[in-house]
């Protein structure tokens, strides 16, 4: 009574990510990881050229401050911010801090994290531009 039945198997979809808006946004989020990595790489390049002396550093800076360079930075910034926001959103859900026994509502946590982030960014910016 265990006769085999010919079942039909579909091949895995290669274009599933075109299926809906959420999938598309997911792909953007994943690709934004490259942006963050690329940004990190540029930062490391800056550090490296610092060790090579003022001429090397200046020439890198000229590249970075060219119109193409600024455009690249702007694009990377957008992706990096998007990446960070999705991360804050996730951590808010996964490890919500609790206050007086009840978990803090997600919107509050996300807003709070963004506020702290902007706060720290402000002080870093002040520090750089005052001292730099």
């Amino acid at each position, binding site marked *: 009574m265990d006769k085999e039945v010919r*079942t*039909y198997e*579909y091949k895995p*979809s290669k274009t599933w990510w075109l299926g809906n808006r*959420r999938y598309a946004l997911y792909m953007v989020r994943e690709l934004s990881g490259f942006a963050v990595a690329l940004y990190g790489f540029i930062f490391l390049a800056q550090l490296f050229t610092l060790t090579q002396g003022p001429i090397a550093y200046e020439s890198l800076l000229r590249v970075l401050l060219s119109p193409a360079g600024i455009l690249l930075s702007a694009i990377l910034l957008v992706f990096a911010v998007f990446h960070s926001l999705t991360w804050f959103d996730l951590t808010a859900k996964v490890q919500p801090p609790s206050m007086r026994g009840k978990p803090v509502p997600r919107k509050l946590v996300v807003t709070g994290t963004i506020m702290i982030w902007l706060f720290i960014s402000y002080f870093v910016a002040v520090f750089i531009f005052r001292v730099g």
Partner: protein
Amino acid sequence: MASQKTIKIRVKRYIPEKAEEPFYSEYDVPYSEDMVVLDALNYIKDNLDGSLSFRWSCRMGVCGSCSANVDGKPKLTCSSFLKESKGDSILVEPLSHFRTIKDLVVEIDVFVKKLKSIKPWIIRNEEKPIADGEYLQTPEQRDLIKQTSMCINCMLCYEACPVFDMDNDFIGPAAAAISYRSVMDSRDDGAKERLDILTSKHGVWDCTYIGECSVVCPKAVDPALAIQKLKAMGGISIIKSLLPKKK
């Protein structure tokens, strides 16, 4: 008598004795405001084509039998109202991430195996005799398992998951969510054992947090979040096991 409004139902069929490939059949079904796709399928089976095969039982969204793709979206046919569809034709197809047996009926053994592998029962270090009464659990502790205990095993989440599509061995949303429910049950002592299973190959690390599973879940179980929480727990558990043990 006013003429009866009808709607076209296009169904992806598969009859292994008749053809190697699936094919489409189209039917005209009388339409009324409160009809669901399941009602249309039953009308077809009763009046137009007795060979149309599909699973269903409770017709109220609690047994998880009637999963299908309606207009390309994973839905329970008993909870999918005809009036939700735009246009005058509705497409009904079987779940494509599972092997089709016939028409809308798919092979679900793969899920039953996963369910068994996560040990969905209470694991205790020490059993309390029944005569001594129940394990105490406060309403707050009970609330921790509320969401993930709602899973009806409909497998729509597996249909929504691209990872499962590419790798059938992935533990998947429902099994992970049910295991999370076990971990969070204050009466269960099996957290370490469960996390070992969940952090092993084909476990939660395969999930890339696409999140579509939680979107299609008809019971708002939010398996995506359960998996991310398990990742956090798993990560902490692994780090703890690497630290030197306190004497």
